[in-house]
């Protein structure tokens, strides 16, 4: 007979089921690779699980999980530099969005964005994800990154500027290519 899950296990499994897409998407924006994103989230959750009885009583469980995600991402970056993902979204199976032929432009735009994201410093990428994907206030992002609000502001501004520059350059290149 299958072992009945303990209440804490059932509770944690429920949390994972509810938040797995959200966490893997954030990790995907950080790492640029779906497999790495899943591995990162799995490592995060394995770390969280032993402390779950205490963590689940916190008012903001997600904040703890986000902090662990960013911390483990930073550690993994220190060990291995983030690799630029291929401009071909299908090449290594990392891109899971179904794309119809008429979505070619959208796919190219996404590839541009991923390349641009990959060109950012890991800390800038983390700031972007915290501020503009997870929509966290500057103070909470600063708390998670263990830096000042001013640093979050400046890193976010630099990252946004750099992304816009990349996109403008790509748009100009496209225009030249088509004329």
């Amino acid at each position: 007979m299958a072992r009945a899950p303990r209440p804490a296990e059932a509770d944690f499994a429920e949390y994972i089921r509810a938040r797995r897409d959200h966490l893997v998407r954030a990790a995907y924006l950080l790492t640029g690779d779906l497999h790495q994103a899943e591995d990162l989230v799995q490592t995060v959750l394995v770390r969280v699980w032993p402390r779950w009885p205490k963590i689940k009583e916190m008012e903001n469980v997600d904040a703890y999980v986000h902090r662990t995600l960013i911390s483990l991402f930073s550690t993994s970056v220190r060990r291995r530099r983030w690799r630029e993902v291929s401009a071909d979204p299908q090449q290594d199976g990392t891109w899971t969005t179904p794309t119809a032929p008429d979505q070619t432009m959208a796919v190219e735009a996404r590839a541009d964005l991923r390349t641009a994201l990959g060109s950012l410093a890991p800390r800038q990428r983390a700031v972007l994800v915290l501020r503009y994907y997870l929509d966290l206030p500057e103070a909470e992002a600063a708390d998670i990154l263990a830096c000042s609000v001013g640093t979050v502001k400046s890193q976010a501004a630099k990252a946004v500027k750099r992304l816009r520059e990349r996109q403008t350059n790509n748009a100009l290149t496209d225009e030249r290519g088509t004329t």
Partner: protein
Amino acid sequence: MNTPSHEDEIRSLLHHEVEGVHASADLDARVFRGARRVRRVKAGTIGAMALLAMGGLLLVALPKAQTSTEATVRAAPPHCPTSIPVGSVTPSHREGADRTLVPGTPTAAVACTYQVSTASDGTPQATLVTSKAPVQLTGATLNGVVAALNQPVHGYAFRCPSARSYRELMLRFDYGAGPQVTVVANLHCPGLSNGTLSGAFNPQGTLPPALTALITKN
């Protein structure tokens, strides 16, 4: 300085970027497997060290260990825990707990009232307001409470994040056999839950008479 429109554009691009990205369905199973593997490695390391260090001592302690294994688990008399988790309820594995707050026909229940407040370190805590002896429910009173609890609109959030001090009513239902079911109702803001299913009676959070009677008794 970036204008808000630039930030909104980035926000939109990032969300667009991850459309269609989904986690594997077996992520939870992989997490538990990974955690067990980590635990086994840790336990193996610690166990080996402990065995080496305490070899002789283990033989001396053996008779004592045998005595402790003979301890029997007796059913505790109904009582109210001195504190309960804040913002979450331990889900019951009783069949039907995902469809109705109090599934089936419980044979008895206890009701305990808690005061939720913020500790000096900032963590919320729910402490028992009255004595450990709970209000015990049986017969018609129990049936009335079960009927009342099975009426709320489901899907309402249970959390009461903005409130710093409020009361909670905890009801624990016993079935004679199988898992118990615990229901916690916020008395400050709308929302009650059995850990799996959450709901509210109305947006104001007022409770039906069958439940308010229990609070008065407490």
